[in-house]
């Protein structure tokens, strides 16, 4: 038999138990329940979620339409400036359809959307789809990279802090999480620009989107600072949850059992504890995604990053209603899809969870 070093440090002649043995200590699903919770159930669940998403999109677009119109001003102001005559203002209002009622404009817009037309920018004349298409790759690159960095940071620091409580490392991690919550992302971004870009001339401070898949090194350099800003922010938030989730799971009986049968500590954490700790972590990830999008808007503005965030800002300033509406729809859909993905991930992480 193989010899294993147990948690207390001594050697024990114990059989190597498989993970499934430990995990399956929990009771299996009740007979019959697994039949109804199959692919048909999943399809029904997905259909329900899609219908919910459509409803959310309609409500969000109506609310957003109303709110943006509450703000004083009009795209005509941005286009004509302060020297326009009332006749010019009236003529442009009419040509843009802004002289119609709010409800009429919204219904017309909704009709176009149902035909796949998100409208055009009042300022540039380009279609909203084109503008989004120009910006989406940049934002996706930033979001994926930042979230990846943040999650990796969170997993590493969270696990380290959970497994080494009341140590200097744990204190450092606590300090980092506190700072990440209290330091505004725009302030951090500006500091990073000042240090790495203005002082050290080490990294570009602003304005550039270079696709990583086309120019890996240049792309990574160009987005290093915004990714660091966002990654540190989301990493700090997630680290707290990872630490808390892992610490809770490490107290569970099956983890104690795994240790007592001689499973290496690394496997205890990564294979046993983490998988069960992932459920709350995944939940929080989905919830944080919406807030993360907001942080992305601010970070893009600080770094002049040509993504959807800066598009939203410029559209608000110019009262470019169609572009704003299209962008909001996209962001709402993105958050909803991410949360759907989170829910579906549950089923993978925990086979006991079934939908339908």
């Amino acid at each position: 038999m193989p010899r294993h070093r147990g948690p207390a440090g001594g050697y024990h002649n114990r059989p190597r138990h498989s993970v499934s043995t430990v995990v399956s200590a929990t009771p299996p699903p009740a007979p019959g329940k697994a039949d109804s919770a199959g692919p048909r159930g999943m399809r029904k669940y997905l259909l329900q979620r899609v219908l919910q998403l459509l409803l959310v999109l309609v409500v969000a677009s109506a609310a957003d339409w109303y709110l943006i119109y509450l703000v004083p001003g009009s795209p005509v102001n941005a286009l004509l400036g302060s020297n326009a005559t009332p006749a010019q203002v009236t003529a442009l209002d009419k040509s843009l359809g802004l002289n119609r009622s709010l409800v009429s404009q919204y219904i017309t817009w909704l009709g176009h959307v149902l035909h796949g037309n998100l409208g055009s920018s009042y300022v540039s004349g380009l279609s909203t789809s084109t503008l989004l298409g120009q910006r989406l790759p940049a934002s996706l690159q930033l979001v994926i990279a930042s979230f990846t960095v943040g999650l990796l940071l969170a997993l590493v620091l969270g696990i380290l802090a959970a497994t080494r409580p009341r140590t200097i490392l744990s204190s450092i991690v606590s300090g980092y999480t506190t700072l990440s919550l209290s330091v505004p992302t725009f302030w951090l971004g500006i500091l990073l620009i000042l240090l790495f870009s203005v002082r050290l001339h080490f990294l570009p401070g602003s304005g550039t989107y270079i696709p990583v898949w086309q120019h890996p090194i240049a792309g990574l350099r160009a987005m290093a600072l915004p990714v660091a800003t966002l990654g540190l922010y989301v990493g700090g938030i997630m680290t707290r949850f990872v630490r808390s989730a892992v610490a809770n799971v490490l107290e569970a009986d099956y983890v104690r059992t795994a240790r007592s049968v001689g499973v290496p500590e690394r496997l205890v954490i990564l294979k046993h504890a983490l998988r069960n700790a992932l459920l709350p972590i995944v939940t929080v990830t989905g919830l944080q995604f919406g807030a993360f999008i907001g942080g992305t808007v601010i970070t893009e503005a600080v770094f002049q990053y040509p993504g959807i965030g800066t598009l939203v800002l410029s559209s608000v300033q110019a009262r470019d209603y169609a572009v704003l509406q299209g962008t909001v729809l996209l962001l709402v859909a993105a958050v909803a899809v991410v949360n759907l993905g989170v829910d579906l991930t549950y089923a993978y992480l925990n086979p006991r969870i079934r939908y339908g």
Partner: protein
Amino acid sequence: MTRNNHYEAEQLPPVEGQDGYLGKVVDRRALLRSLALGGLSLGSLPLLSACGGSSAPTHKSSPATSAAPRSGGTLNIGVSEDVVTFNPDNNLFNNFIYTRNIYDAMIDYTSNLTPIPRLATSWKMSPDNTSLTVNLRPGVVFQDGTPVTAQAIADNFTFAGNAATGFSLISIAALLKSVTVTGPTSLQLTFVTPTPLEKATDILQSLPIISPKSLTAAALKSTADGSGPFSFGTWTPGNELVLKRNPTFWDHGFPYLDSVVFHIFSNAQSMVAALSAGSLQAAVYVPPNLLSAVSSKHRVQKGHQGALTYSFHLNASKPPFNNKLVRQAMQLCFDREAIVRDVLFGYSAATVLPWGPESPAYDPSALTQYAFDLKKAKAMFDAAGVTKQTFACSCPAPYPEIASMAQILKADLNKIGLDITISTPDINTWVSSYYASNFQILPEFEGNLAKYPTYCTLNSGYRLKKNPNWGNGPLPASWVNALAAADSALTPSAQKSAFAAMNKSLLDEAWIIDVAYRQSLFVSSPAISGVGHNVDDMIELQDTRLT
């Protein structure tokens, strides 16, 4: 190789903690050059009254650089406001970066308003000042290959006269009774009333010529087509505008640059940070308060003084500023020296009138006559019954220096028992309140002030109809009469008298209080030379080179 004329502001060393204004701002070389050209212009005035134009343009040489400039290359410039449209008739400040680079006009002006041929080689006013005959430069083509013909020019006047497309220049087109094509490269402009030559040449200078193929609002939304030194490359809204060398530009040998990339920033601080980090070679329209963040290796170049003026608008249709005495009292509450020193860091000069030193209406004595005097202002406020009041001041957010000027005003008003509340709405909300005449004090900066003085009516605050400062109601008779006199003044003495009447009305009625010139600041690395600004303070890159 013909070197086209090109007004270029003096390059100054970077300013750190500079004190003062006026004499320290204009250096000796610039002053002497202005005087020399001014003398030349005055001497040739009798000739200009009969005809204009020359086939051999005069020009100023750019300051010598230490290294040999080279042709080619790409210039990366930061700008803090995005383009709104590529219709240059929309004379918004946002569009200044491309107007004179993509489009050309029939003439240009030197810094002291001497006309220089561009698309037009000569122009002749009829003896009765009712028509102007213009001859165009042959062989010029637009960037799409279409020839620049008299018909194309005529189409441009029609476009400018259309309310839906003419924007600011509709007032220019309204001066014309007709535009008649008399030949492939000649046309005749007939005015509604006899027009001074200087005002007529303003028309030639102000109208950027668009290719007939693109003379629609839809086409100019997102692309440009002119005959200037650069052609439209690409525009990613909110990100960058790329201009490319126009290989068919009529002035052979120009431009030197292969391309220009304008990087658009949503705020000036980010732009200056990028400049300091070396991501940009230059930045245009840099706020003076950010110059301290720029390395001393960079050069600062000022634009044309008198093109734009910071002014505080008073709503003369509502209390308390419907009382002339109150408006006149406010005129004395502005510490212009402090504004130029502390807000504009010496990169300006104080002024009481909107005109620059090159303008025929310029009157330096007004600055002394209406100097900062809180004691006198208080007496006038008391006489008008205005005591312990607070006025609302709405400053446009994109221009923080304006709010800083308002802060200085506030501090001074507090000394005499008055106050202002300062708000900084976004530009869209700010414009809305101006259109609706829903303001008490509304500061901004205005253009179209460097040329024939009545051109100021392109600004809504000076125009006679639908003027928000007067609640869209009638303007003072003194202003109406002074404008009419200036518009019809055909001789220098009549013009002098008319301009004096305009100034008297502006200072007496005081619904717009001018405080200082707004001169654009172009900050660049030493490797760049040949950047110019025209009299409207639009950037011109035809002569620009990298070393």
